[in-house]
């Protein structure tokens, strides 16, 4: 009984080859992680180019129009109508808008959560690795050609894709012969395949590789969230592939799925695209919802409040999330019943989300809270996410959405949930799990700076965006009415704080490798209160994680109250 299982014979490489050939879920998780960190900086730099353009007081619509009509030099701007700016013309601006979104969504936030899931989920369920280790490696390496395709497309003839990350035809069908949009489509395909492979892997791992005794009712919430998100990825990502393939074929092979002049319909694409892209919103936040429950519980020294409520809420967000896609396209014109249905369904999602928010608060209630950086990020997340979600409630109302759709209110809203939500979650998860993943601590004192800069930066960047949108500023515009000058100044200032904080974090992340190795298994002393597998092995865990089948948790994560 309990004899150590024999280790399989494996060939050991060292150095770079070790990383290139690894099928270990922990190393793959770290490859994902560093890819995400670098891509996050690239995407943040793209955002900087956008903010620079929108910050310059000379680049307002009126001043530019006046200067251009008068034949004088256009005001200082990165992108100019006459091509005199640093980056050429407004086509470059649209490329930047498109790539900022694509990089942030496909290469930062979605793989960001996969990075942690890859590392932590097998540990949490007491598995030695993912179910399909080689497929896991294939998935991560697919992201590199994907990112290379997208980012190098800036340098091809005609530039990168410039039709927004939504790639709505007919705009995405213009410029046939310029490879930028086609490279974008292929990049999405690669990222999509990577995503689907990861989803299959997680589903099989969670279903079949749980340690004996790790029943569904004891599954940690992060594992539950990864499970639900994998279902979304598995079902929805092929639909995205279908949508962008229609664009690819309409561009290159003479089909007319979306070409109105030969019987197609541009709105068809929008429906199919959003059928993926709305659930994708939940891909980008649900895993973090699961993880943050652990963080709140760990640093409050309590157990998660309302375990089953949380699981059911995550499941119902998953289910209802598939049925609300058309709230992104109310203005295309649809029947009254459809408008009402999509409004009510969208509002309904607020209920499980509310359950989660209140359960997190109840998790902290009565605890003895230690405000580590991870906990600060978790609390900051709660605050900004509630603001972002509130904007979503207002946007769901059709008649109000007619005014807010494609305005900066929408931009403010989804950045508030993606940056104030997902990115804050990723930071919290990094500060929480980095000791486990790397074996080194991140600096808590630097971390406080990172948190406060980012928290203030996020509020300062995205709250004024809501105001710009309410005043009537359209999104994806390189020049704007001077009415919005003040709010845009604030937004640009906030961006600088946020990006500065990301840079400080990046430096601290590299510096952490020079700090001494952690010698304890459980640096946060979490298992005093609860028992979770990932804190019961060394930092970082050894190859194959557990020499023995781990013991069944003594303390039930549900607290024994189902």
């Amino acid at each position: 009984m309990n004899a150590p299982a024999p280790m399989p014979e494996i060939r050991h490489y060292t150095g770079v080859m070790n990383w290139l050939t690894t099928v270990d879920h922990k190393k793959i998780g770290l490859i994902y992680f560093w890819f995400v960190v670098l891509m996050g900086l690239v995407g943040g730099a793209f955002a900087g180019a956008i903010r620079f353009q929108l910050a310059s007081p000379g680049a307002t619509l009126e001043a530019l129009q006046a200067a251009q009509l008068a034949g004088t030099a256009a005001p200082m701007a990165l992108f100019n109508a006459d091509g005199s700016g640093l980056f050429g013309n407004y086509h470059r601006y649209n490329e930047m808008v498109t790539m900022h979104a694509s990089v942030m969504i496909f290469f930062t936030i979605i793989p960001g959560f996969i990075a942690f899931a890859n590392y932590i989920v097998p540990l949490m369920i007491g598995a030695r690795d993912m179910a399909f280790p080689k497929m896991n490696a294939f998935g991560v390496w697919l992201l590199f050609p994907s990112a290379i395709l997208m980012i190098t497309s800036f340098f091809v003839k005609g530039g990168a894709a410039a039709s927004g990350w939504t790639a709505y035809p007919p705009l995405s069908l213009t410029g046939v012969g310029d490879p930028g949009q086609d490279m974008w489509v292929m990049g999405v395909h690669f990222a999509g395949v990577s995503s689907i492979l990861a989803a299959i892997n997680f589903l099989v791992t969670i279903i079949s590789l749980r340690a004996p005794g790790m029943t569904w009712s004891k599954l940690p919430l992060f594992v539950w969230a990864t499970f639900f998100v994998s279902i979304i990825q598995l079902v929805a990502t092929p639909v995205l592939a279908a949508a962008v393939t229609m664009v690819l074929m309409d561009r290159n092979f003479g089909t007319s799925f979306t070409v109105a002049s030969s019987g197609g319909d541009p709105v068809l694409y929008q429906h199919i695209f959003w059928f993926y892209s709305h659930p994708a919103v939940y891909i980008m936040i649900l895993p973090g919802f699961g993880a943050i429950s652990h963080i709140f519980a760990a640093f409050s020294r309590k157990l998660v409040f309302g375990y089953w409520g949380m699981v059911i809420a995550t499941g119902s967000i998953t289910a209802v999330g598939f049925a609300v896609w058309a709230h992104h396209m109310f203005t295309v014109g649809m029947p009254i019943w459809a408008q009402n249905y999509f409004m009510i369904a969208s509002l309904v999602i607020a209920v499980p989300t509310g359950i989660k928010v209140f359960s997190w608060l109840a998790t902290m209630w009565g605890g003895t809270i230690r405000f580590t950086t991870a906990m600060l990020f978790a609390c900051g997340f709660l605050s900004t996410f509630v603001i972002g979600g509130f904007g979503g409630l207002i946007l769901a109302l059709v008649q109000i959405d007619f005014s807010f759709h494609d305005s900066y209110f929408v931009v403010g809203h989804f950045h508030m949930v993606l940056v104030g939500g997902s990115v804050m979650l990723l930071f919290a998860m990094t500060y929480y799990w980095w000791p486990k993943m790397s074996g080194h601590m991140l600096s808590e004192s630097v971390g406080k700076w990172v948190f406060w800069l980012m928290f203030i930066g996020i509020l300062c960047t995205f709250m004024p965006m809501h105001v710009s949108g309410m005043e009537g500023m359209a999104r994806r515009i390189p020049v704007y009415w001077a009415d919005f000058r003040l709010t845009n100044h604030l937004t640009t200032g906030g961006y600088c704080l946020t990006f500065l904080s990301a840079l400080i974090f990046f430096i601290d992340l590299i510096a952490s490798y020079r700090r001494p190795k952690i010698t304890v298994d459980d640096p946060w002393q979490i298992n005093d209160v609860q028992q979770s597998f990932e804190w019961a092995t060394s930092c970082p865990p050894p190859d194959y994680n557990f020499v023995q089948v781990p013991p069944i948790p003594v303390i039930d994560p549900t607290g024994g109250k189902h």
Partner: protein
Amino acid sequence: MLRLLLALVVAAGCLAAAEPSGHDASGHAASVPATSAEVDRQVALFNPEVWKLDEKKQPILKLDDPFNTPASDVARRIASDFWFSLLIFSPFLILPQILLLVIIFKFRDRGDGRKAATFSGNHLLEVVWTAVPCVALVIVTVPSVQTIIWMEFPPDAARRDVVPVEVIGKQFSWKYRYMREDHAALIGLDVAGLQEPLVLPKDRIAVLNLTSEDVNHAWWIPAFGVKKDAIIGRHTNVWFTPDRVGTFKGQCAELCGNDHGRMIITAVITDAADYELWVEHLRYRNAALKIWSLVRDPLAKPEQVDAAVAKYLAVDSSVAAKNALRFWIATNHASLLRGKGQGPNKDQLKSESRRDRERIDGLLNLTARRTTQEAAP
């Protein structure tokens, strides 16, 4: 079903147009020759300056939004729905923030040996925070559904009095055609390549029928609270009743290419008399633009212009026709001055404008005198 009903609305509007109502106003407006100042007023009204900044570099024409400065019945209803939903939903924004602050200050670990609580569930609490949001959603949904239905169907009483306009988006400008008027005038870009405004009467329902000639666009003027996509191969409809006289600006709200950010929209809301005047002017627009191009053609001989004006008057020599010609010459000059008159050629363009306008005024009077002289013997 929806399309059918909107078609009915438009049809009803057309029937109403067939009745000889509202023509009195136009007849009245055009029965006297306009003074020079009156022409200038019309130019300022129908061709407003939307780009100008004051000395503090703030725009002179402020952007109105539906929540603080609504300018249509739709915007007013949306604004009231907005503030109402904000009120009902606000506890869900404020309560978590307050609770979070309380938790942060109350349950911080002060190292005094206080033990953390051990509860991990409370069914009553969970039922409460599931049920209460549901109630709030119902409270907000009911008026929203009513508004959505109302926004699809214009009020019965006013259906006969609609102004249907066809709106066509094209990279990167808008074309407008008044569907009820029988003239062929298409409003689009002016002589300086800037977007011309859509002129609509106050207190009458405007029904816009949108489509696109190329990529997707969206027609959006915040003050009216309407936004609708213009999509190739489709016709979308939207209605609103402007209830405030003034000039309103907006812009295309769907990414449509390089100059998306400069695809602006302006709407001028006038009272009934001015609107009739505008419709009257539009009737002569295409003929007047021919004369304009001759006037501005450096190769055209003066006799050609004389002949063109005579031909113009031969078709219609009414006071309305003369006023329309003077208006179009003046308004095109205003556009030119705005477009190309920022630099050193400002004074030259101004003097050209004065010269051309006096010339046309003279020609209109001269031709009239000649006609009477020829008729005398």
